[in-house]
C-alpha cells in the first residue's frame, strides 16, 4: 500500500515538473506579449514574470495603429504576412491533399503508382536546403519568387508525403463492400470514388487536411528562401522586427509569435486522435 502511494506521489511530482517545463516557455512569451516596454527586460531589479501594467500596445504596434511608445514606426504591418501565411499554407494544403488523396486511392484500390510510397518517403528524407537552389532558379525563371502561390506550390510538394500516407492508411482501413455494391449497381469506378468513397471519408479527409495545414503553417526555411518582401510569411516577418535602430522588439515579436502559435495548437487539439498516424506516416495507429 505504501509503495503504491509512494509511486502515485512520485508520478504526480514528475508530471507537475514536466508540465511546468512544457508550459513555461509558452507562458513567458504570452506574458511578454502583454508587457509594456519598461518590463521587457530586467533592469537591475528582478525579472517581471507577470506583466505589472498589462497592455495591448504590442499588438497595436504590429498592426500599425499605436506607435507612441516605440521610437521607430514599422514600414509595414503584420497584416500582409499573416495573410501570406494563410494563403500559402492553405493553397499548399489543397495541392497536397488533392494530389495525395487521389494517388492514395489509386494505389490502395488499383495498385497504380507502386513507386510512390518509397519516392515520397525519400522526399521527406532530404534536407530542403539541399534541393532549394535549383527551385530558386526555376522560381525566378517562372516569376514565382516572392508570390504566395509560388510558395504554396513548394509547400504542396513538401507535405505531399504526409497527405499521401495518411490517406492511404485511411483508404486501406475502409471496408470495400459498399464500393463493391455500388459497382454491381452499375456505377463507374470514377463515380464510386467521387460520389461514394470521398463523402464517406469526410472526417479522415478533414483531419489529414488540418494536419498538412499545420505542417505548412510551421515552415520557416522555404519562405525565407522564396519570399523577399511582398509575400513574406509570419516567421520571416518576425525576424525583421529587430534592427540596429530599435534593437530587439521583444514585446512586438512575442505578440506576433502568440498569433502564429494559436492556429496549430487549436487545430492540433482537434486532430489529437490522428496525430500519431500522421507523424509516423501511418505506420502506427492510435
Amino acid at each position, binding site marked *: 500500500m505504501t509503495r503504491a502511494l509512494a509511486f502515485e506521489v512520485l508520478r504526480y511530482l514528475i508530471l507537475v515538473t514536466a508540465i511546468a517545463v512544457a508550459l513555461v516557455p509558452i507562458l513567458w512569451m504570452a506574458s511578454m506579449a502583454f508587457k509594456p516596454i519598461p518590463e521587457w527586460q530586467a533592469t537591475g531589479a528582478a525579472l517581471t514574470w507577470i506583466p505589472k501594467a498589462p497592455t495591448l500596445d504590442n499588438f497595436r504596434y504590429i498592426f500599425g495603429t499605436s506607435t507612441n511608445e516605440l521610437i521607430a514606426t514599422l514600414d509595414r504591418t503584420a497584416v500582409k504576412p499573416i495573410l501570406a501565411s494563410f494563403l500559402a499554407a492553405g493553397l499548399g494544403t489543397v495541392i497536397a491533399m488533392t494530389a495525395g488523396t487521389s494517388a492514395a486511392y489509386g494505389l490502395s484500390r488499383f495498385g497504380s503508382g507502386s513507386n510512390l510510397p518509397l519516392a515520397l518517403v525519400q522526399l521527406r528524407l532530404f*534536407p530542403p536546403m539541399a534541393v532549394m537552389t535549383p527551385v530558386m532558379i526555376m522560381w525566378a525563371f517562372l516569376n514565382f519568387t516572392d508570390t504566395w502561390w509560388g510558395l504554396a506550390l513548394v509547400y504542396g510538394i513538401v507535405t505531399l508525403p504526409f497527405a499521401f500516407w495518411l490517406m492511404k492508411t485511411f483508404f486501406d482501413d475502409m471496408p470495400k463492400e459498399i464500393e463493391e455494391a455500388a459497382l454491381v449497381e452499375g456505377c463507374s469506378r470514377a463515380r464510386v470514388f467521387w460520389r461514394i468513397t470521398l463523402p464517406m471519408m469526410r472526417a479522415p479527409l478533414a483531419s489529414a487536411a488540418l494536419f498538412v495545414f499545420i505542417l505548412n503553417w510551421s515552415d520557416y526555411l522555404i519562405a525565407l528562401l522564396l519570399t523577399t518582401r511582398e509575400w513574406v510569411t509570419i516567421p520571416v516577418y518576425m525576424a525583421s522586427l529587430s534592427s540596429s535602430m530599435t534593437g530587439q522588439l521583444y514585446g512586438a515579436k512575442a505578440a506576433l509569435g502568440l498569433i502564429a502559435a494559436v492556429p496549430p495548437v487549436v487545430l492540433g487539439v482537434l486532430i489529437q486522435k490522428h496525430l500519431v498516424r500522421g507523424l509516423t506516416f501511418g505506420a502506427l495507429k492510435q
Partner: protein
Amino acid sequence: MKDDGAKLGFRLTLPAQVLVLFISVFPLLMQLYISLTDWSPLAGTSWTQAWAMWNTFANYTDLIYDQRLWSALGRTALVIGVCVPVEFLLGLGLATLFMDDFPGKRAAYSILIMPMMVVPAVAGYMFFMLFQSGGPINDILSNLIGHPITVAWLSDPNLALLAVMVADIWQWTPLMFLILLAGLAGVPEDQIKAATLLGAGPVQRFVTIVLPRMKTIIGIALAIRVIECFKIFDTLFIMTGGGPGVATETISVYIYKIATQDLIWGYVAAIALAILIVLSIACVWALKRMART
C-alpha cells in the same frame, strides 16, 4: 472492368507523380550540371550557360578539404547524438507514467504535447528570449544557486550549442512521448498481468515483455527524429543564426550561408548532391535491414 480500374488508377496517381518528378528529377539534373561548374547567380549569365565556367570535379575535390563543412557535419552529428537519446529516454519515461489511468490524465496529455505544436521558428524565438543574459533561465538558476548569475548563453561559443539542444529537446520530447505511448498501448495487457502473477517485478516486465514488442515502434520513432534532427534549421537559426562565429553551424545552416551569402551555387550543388547520395545509400541500407528482420 479490370482495364477501367487500371486506367483510373493511372489518372489518379498522375498528379502526384508529376509533382514528385518536378521536385526530384529536374532539380537533381540541374544540381548535377551546376555542380560541375563555377556558376553563381552573380555570374551575369543564365544557369544554362554554366558550361562556360566548367571546372570538372573541382567542387567535389574542394569539399573533401572543406574544414567548415566537416565541422558542420560533426556538429550536426553531435546534436543528433545528444538530442535524440535524451528525447527518447524522457519520452519513454513519461509514456510509462501514462500506462494506467489516473485523475487528470487527459489534461496532462494535452498539455505535454503542446510544445510540438508550436511553430519551430516561434519556439526558436521563445528560447532566444529565455536564454538572454537577463532572462528567465538565468533568473531561475540564480534563485536555485542563491547568488545572481548572468551567463550569456547565446553569445558564448561553448554554451550556444547547448542552448540550441535544450530548445530541440523541449520541442521534440513530446513527439517521442506521443509515439512511444501509442506503442505501449499496443502491448497486450493480459501478458503483463500473467507476468505479474508469475512474480516478475516492474523492471523485469518492462525489459522482457514490453520492450521486445515495441522494437518496431522504437525504431520508427528514432528514425523520424534522426532524420528531422539532421535537417535542424528553424529554431537554431532564429536563436543563434549559426553563431557565435560558427559555434552552432549545422549542415543546413552552413549550406544556407554559402548559398545566400557567398552565392557559390556550383559548390552548393556539389555538397547537396554528395549529401543526397550518402543519404540515399543509408536509406536503402536501412530499408534492406528492416526487411530482413
